[in-house]
């Protein structure tokens, strides 16, 4: 049985696509056959983050409308051979993602893949609802900032009322909190909500904390899922999150500010 995971947030720009790219790459790296689907029709970006933008021939909407087969549209990742990308359409209307069409594609993917990761668009409109509808699990990406936390709570309400699991009275969607752009220094100075604050407000289990890091931008500049930057703090934090998603018990890291030594203070201006 394939596990269907939606990466969602409500708010835009919090790191959904970065997270989708890294989580799917991490699952595939561990040998699970994984597909990541871009649901952001009209504003596709997963292809750029995964460095396959020049290999897109057919897309999700082409498959729904019968203009291409699923195999024609799936792009095989060049770095991890159990990873596939299904790009969004850049030219169609959002409504081209019909509930029946999406269901057909997901069911077909579920026959051969272990994991289906759905990269949701921002907002709570059609595209976002389509992305979360089939989910068994949800990774709610949140920044430690008021509007993001509020929107995350809103999307949790939607998962609990409008998902397939909710509508059919099945077990609820399993929710995970992924806190990204976390800056321990600012938390220590009382300028930023802490992990504990956000956990307390949203009251869902914590999957991981991704520290705010220059590496994330560097990686996206190059079309490299940040989890493949194995030496970096953000890359390792994503790797921990994938391990936890697979049931491993890993301690949370990068939660505290690193104390700067005397010399780095002297020469880097504190």
């Amino acid at each position, binding site marked *: 049985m394939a596990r269907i995971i939606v990466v969602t947030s409500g708010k835009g720009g919090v790191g959904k696509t970065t997270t989708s790219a890294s989580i799917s790459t991490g699952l595939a790296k561990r040998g699970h056959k994984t597909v990541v689907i871009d649901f952001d029709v009209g504003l596709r970006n997963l292809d750029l983050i995964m460095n396959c933008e020049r290999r897109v021939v057919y897309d999700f909407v082409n498959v729904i409308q019968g203009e291409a087969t699923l195999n024609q549209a799936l792009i095989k990742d060049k770095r991890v051979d159990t990873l596939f990308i299904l790009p969004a359409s850049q030219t169609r209307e959002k409504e081209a993602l019909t509930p029946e069409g999406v269901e057909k594609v997901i069911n077909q993917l579920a026959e051969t893949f272990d994991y289906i990761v759905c990269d949701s668009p921002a907002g709570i409109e059609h595209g976002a609802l389509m992305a979360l509808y089939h989910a068994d699990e949800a990774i709610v990406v949140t920044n430690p*900032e*008021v509007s993001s*936390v*509020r929107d995350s*709570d*809103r999307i949790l*309400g939607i998962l609990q*009322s409008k998902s397939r699991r909710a509508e059919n009275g099945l077990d609820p969607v399993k929710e995970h909190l992924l806190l990204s752009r976390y800056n321990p220094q600012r*938390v220590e*100075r*009382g*300028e*930023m*909500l*802490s992990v504990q*604050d956000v956990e*307390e*407000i*949203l009251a869902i289990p914590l999957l991981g904390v991704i520290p705010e890091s220059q590496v994330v931008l560097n990686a996206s500049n190059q079309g490299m899922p940040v989890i493949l930057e194995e030496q970096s703090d953000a890359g390792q934090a994503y790797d921990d999150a994938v391990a936890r998603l697979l049931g491993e018990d890993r301690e949370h890291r990068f939660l505290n500010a690193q104390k700067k030594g005397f010399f780095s203070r002297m020469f880097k201006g504190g």
Partner: protein
Amino acid sequence: MSFLDYFRSKKTPSASVAKERLQIIVAHERGQRAQPDYLPQLQQELLEVIRKYVQISDDMVQVEVDRNDSCSVLELNVTLPEK
């Protein structure tokens, strides 16, 4: 206020202000989410009925549903104008 207090006094950290504001708004929005869909229409129709007898404004009727484990209570608050 002594001279030293100037250095000691600290404003409330903004993160705790954020947390407090979030706790309030999130609790409020969750409360609304749990309300049944028909509530706004029920409130509107109640207003119309009451207006047949007494002139009241929109905000003078409050309708809420409180859910306990075993039963739900429809709470209706009507403020009548002073004569």
